[in-house]
């Protein structure tokens, strides 16, 4: 079974093509559908909202898209247990729509302007839960470190709700956290590139099928994308090696496994 997934395109998003390439490379049938083509959006096995600047980040990053009727459809599909991934601006949209953390049907988190302004740099994130605890980590070992780039100005996961953060940690809704080279959660820049609370890089809903991730896995999915020249040098001149997969693709492969697992049930 080849899962059919859709990249939901809002005006101003700009990572749809590379997200689709990564999804296809992970073994899924991916296509891009615009936010206003509601009739074409139902019936997919999974949904991805890519990065960019939806509606030019007017008012607050992601808030205009979060109020769009298409989010009702995505909410309904997520309630059926289908996987939904929001990357960067997609994550901001999921948070502003209340789908993340999704404990109550309201906005319980914010993605505030980063402490250090807009940053476009490589970071490291650590998978802090057991394999398969959510729809996007079944191919990733617990404590595995993934090099991954960020490109955002508003990525500071923050909440004012008392006890919510402890609940999220206890219920394994914190999926990835920014870490240093040896996996420690250093709270200073550049390990924590935006000041995010508890170094949170990705959050899920209680069911684990909806995840908001601020770094870009689609930009860390192939050898050609890596900043590490040593790895690249060994692949220079070899097209297949340059196009071979790296750790970011595991997030999309996990999505594929999750969809297949659902279909088998």
């Amino acid at each position: 079974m080849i899962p059919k997934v859709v990249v939901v395109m809002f005006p101003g998003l700009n990572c749809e093509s590379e997200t689709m390439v990564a999804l296809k490379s992970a073994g899924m049938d991916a296509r891009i559908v615009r936010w206003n083509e509601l009739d074409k959006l139902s019936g997919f096995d999974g949904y991805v909202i890519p990065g960019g600047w939806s509606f030019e980040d007017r008012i607050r990053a992601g808030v205009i898209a979060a109020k769009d009727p298409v989010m009702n459809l995505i909410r309904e599909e997520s309630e059926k247990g289908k996987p939904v991934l929001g990357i960067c601006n997609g994550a901001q949209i999921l948070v502003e729509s209340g789908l993340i953390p999704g404990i109550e049907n309201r906005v319980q988190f914010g993605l505030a302007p980063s402490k250090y302004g807009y940053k476009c740099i490589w970071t490291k994130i650590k998978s802090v839960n057991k394999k398969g605890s959510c729809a996007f980590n079944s191919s990733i070992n617990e404590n595995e470190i993934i090099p991954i780039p960020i490109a955002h100005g508003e990525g500071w996961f923050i909440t004012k709700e008392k006890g919510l953060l402890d609940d999220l940690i206890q219920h394994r809704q914190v999926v990835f956290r920014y870490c240093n080279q040896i996996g420690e959660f250093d709270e200073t820049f550049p390990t924590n590139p935006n000041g995010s609370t508890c170094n949170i890089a990705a959050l899920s809903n209680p069911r684990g099928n909806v995840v908001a991730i601020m770094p870009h896995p689609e930009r860390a999915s192939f050898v050609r994308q890596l900043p590490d020249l040593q790895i690249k040098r060994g692949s220079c001149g070899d097209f297949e090696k340059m196009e071979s997969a790296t750790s970011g693709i595991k997030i999309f492969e996990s999505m594929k496994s999750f969809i297949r697992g659902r279909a088998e049930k």
Partner: protein
Amino acid sequence: MSVIELYVELKGYDATEITAFQVLKRLGFSELEKLKRREFYSFGINADAEKFKEKISAVDLLVNANKHLSSFELDKNSGAVFVKVQNELDDCSRLLKTLKQRLDFGEIESLKRGILWGLQLRSKNKLEMVKQITEILLVNKNFQNYQIIKGNEREK
């Protein structure tokens, strides 16, 4: 210490203001007649207020006369209800440093900034509706706060 508030708006179309208005209409707030967006700067100063207003109006850091209109008063007779939205994590330290060190505004003791929304509604219960609109669209209470201002009355 006296407090001076500077309000800055675009002379031309403000795309954010138009988008917010359209989204609110779509969300069912048909009583909303007009929405106006301005940036505001609230200065705590230790100097003569009129001299400070002249001085701050003359520098083009906050106001570019080619594209902005500025004022020091809210139009309280317009019938609008105003909402001040502030990012709680923004201490304005970089702007304050620039004003003090590079532009010689040593008289500024404190600075706050944010967005001032002006809403004109047909509703009988204006304040309640403004609160709803603010919490649905204009504010994320996890890192922002707001203050509703109607004429001289203030409600938190």
